[in-house]
């Protein structure tokens, strides 16, 4: 019967899948690689010269292609299906490169009469399950089926050896010859294409740069020049405005000075009212200013005339330096013209301070009362309490200053009371800050964890040996040859 027993094989696979998990004595994991691992004749069915020949062929093949191809024969499958046995063995040995998963295992189980080629995950594109089956059918099964017609073990071994030689060569011919060269060719073409693309990209970039860089430079220079011109224009306008303003200010200063001269007697009159009712400290600065005023006004008028002279001879470019002198003059003139107003204002201030001081004293005592409670808290620092003491001193000083029947310096009293109140405020906010800081310190701090580092693994590299750690997930094909 020439029909391969493929269908029964598939049936067996289906049932084996359902009932896998036998735990018989001889586990695949108990087998170790023999020598370089290319030929592992545990069933002792491969004849000697051919065994060496196959080993040399497989080593040579690995050297050329890095594909690890292991031939295995076992006396027993330990009750397992050949699929499970081969897969576990191949993964246990790690046939193939760890990265490429390019391993192949051809396993013959003479006693069970099973045959399987297990294909590593990385080779399944080149050697599909269907192709694997076809290779077994065409090159190995016709030889192996002869087993059913012989009786001595020597004859059987001859058949197994012939089948192994044919199978190994068939797989290598299918994979190694054409597809390997093709793979190289494809890789070469891909590299060429990538290089060509890179060259094109570089050229495009260069062309782009050739245009882009000068354009960018020109645009940048243009923007710079334009912004410089605009800035200059703006500055010129500003200076021109300033120049005309200087002129106006000088005129105004002169007017103010004339006005001040005219109003001087009025100011003196006001001052005499002030001096009558209040202690010297309240009016001495104003009295001094009024005493000096006639001379000062004369001087300022002279300097205003000088500035006016200079202004009429200069142009807008000097506006900036000129404006300083002008603004000094204008300030002085305004002050002189406002002397009478100043006296009036001082009198108003004094009367306001006089009427407000009792109110402030009252406000002080209520605030202090509140604050004393706040300061009792244990979190408040002594430096904060010190502020309260300072405030009290100021208040006492103010009260003492209010004592005399006449000539009370109300402005001084007012200032003392205000600063006492300010100290109280400061003490209040400082107490709050103290409390917040204490709360913060009591709160638990977050903890930090140390991260763990993982260590890498490495595998020492060897020569042309089987066992690079390649993975298998069950690809390949199986046949049975015994009847």
């Amino acid at each position, binding site marked *: 019967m020439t029909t391969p*027993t493929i269908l029964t094989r598939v049936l067996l696979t289906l049932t084996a899948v359902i*009932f896998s998990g036998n735990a018989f004595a001889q586990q695949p994991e108990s087998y170790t690689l023999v020598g370089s691992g290319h030929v592992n004749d545990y069933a002792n069915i491969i004849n000697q010269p051919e065994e060496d020949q196959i080993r040399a062929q497989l080593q040579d093949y690995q050297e050329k292609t890095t594909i690890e191809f292991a031939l295995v024969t076992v006396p027993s499958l330990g009750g397992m299906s050949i699929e499970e046995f081969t897969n576990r063995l191949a993964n246990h040995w790690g046939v193939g490169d760890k990265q490429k998963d390019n391993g192949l295992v051809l396993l013959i189980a003479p006693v069970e009469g099973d045959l399987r080629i297990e294909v590593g995950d990385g080779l399944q594109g080149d050697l599909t399950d*269907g192709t694997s089956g*076809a290779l077994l059918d065409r090159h190995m099964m016709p030889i192996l089926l002869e087993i059913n017609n012989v009786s001595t073990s020597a004859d059987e071994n001859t058949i197994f050896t012939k089948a192994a030689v044919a199978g190994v060569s068939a797989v290598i011919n299918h994979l190694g010859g054409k597809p390997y060269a093709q793979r190289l060719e494809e890789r070469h073409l891909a590299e060429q294409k990538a290089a060509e693309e890179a060259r094109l990209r570089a050229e495009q970039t260069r062309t782009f740069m050739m245009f882009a860089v000068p354009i960018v430079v020109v645009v940048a220079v243009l923007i710079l020049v334009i912004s410089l011109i605009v800035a200059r224009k703006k500055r010129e306008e500003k200076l021109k405005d300033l120049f005309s303003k200087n002129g106006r200010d000088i005129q105004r200063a002169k007017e103010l000075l004339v006005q001040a001269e005219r109003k001087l007697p009025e100011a003196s009159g006001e001052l005499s009212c002030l001096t009558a009712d209040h202690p010297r400290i309240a009016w001495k600065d104003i009295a001094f200013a009024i005493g000096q005023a006639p001379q000062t006004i004369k001087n300022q008028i002279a300097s205003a005339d000088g500035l006016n002279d200079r202004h009429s001879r200069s142009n807008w470019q000097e506006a900036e330096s000129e404006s300083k002198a002008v603004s000094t003059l204008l300030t002085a003139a305004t002050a002189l013209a406002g002397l009478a107003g100043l006296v009036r204002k001082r009198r108003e201030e004094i009367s306001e301070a006089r009427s407000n001081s009792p109110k402030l004293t009252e406000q002080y005592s209520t605030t202090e009362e509140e604050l004393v409670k706040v300061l009792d808290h244990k979190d408040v620092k002594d430096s904060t309490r010190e502020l309260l003491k300072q405030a009290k001193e100021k208040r006492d000083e103010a009260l003492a200053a209010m004592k005399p029947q006449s000539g009370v310096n109300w402005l001084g009293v007012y200032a003392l009371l205000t600063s006492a109140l300010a100290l109280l405020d400061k003490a209040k906010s400082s107490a709050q800050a103290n409390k917040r800081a204490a709360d913060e310190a009591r709160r638990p701090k977050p*903890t930090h964890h140390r991260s763990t580092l993982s260590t890498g693994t490495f595998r020492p590299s060897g020569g042309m040996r089987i066992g690079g750690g390649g993975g298998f997930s069950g*690809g390949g094909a*199986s046949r049975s040859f015994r009847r």
Partner: protein
Amino acid sequence: MGKWIGLAVLLIVVVLGIGSCSVGSYGVSTYNQLISKKTNVEKSLGEVNNMYQRRFDLIPQLVESTRGYAIHESDVMVGVAEARAKVGQMNLSMDQLTPQMLANFQTNQGEISSALSRLMVVVEKYPDLKANEQFIRLMDELAGSENRIAVSRTRYNEAVAEFNAFRDGFPTNLVANYFQFQRYPQFEAQTGADKAPTVNFQDLRRGQ
């Protein structure tokens, strides 16, 4: 006396500090290990899905390859197509991985396996189809698929066993419970009704 009390308090504080630090770092490393083992389960589950999907995609080709043969119209081919349709694009995902879901999945996929088994038996009556090269290749692909399914299921079960064992150990289970890591179910070896055909297959094989 007061000095000794102070020292004792300091000692207790230090011991408590070291203790809480080591518990924290133990928790982190256990959590990381749980995650890494869970990732293994997820990867192997993805592989299981891929392999079932591969078989699912092969069936239309198989049906097509029998076109022109008498078997094409027979009940057994209809059975294969129906079993396939019933499974549909069923994929298992990590969040729906309950024992119930896995059992359903396995039952439905098992029906495809049974239907294919019946097909194998019937095919023996069609010698010309058995000699068809394309059909043989598809059979090999199908056998490869079944085998890959078995391997991926075994790997999944191994990953799950490792995860569950780690997850249930003490004190890992405290961390696992805190972060709500669930146990994962495993594929079971099927029982009962499916066992019957095996004998027939064996007989068939010997009789050939």
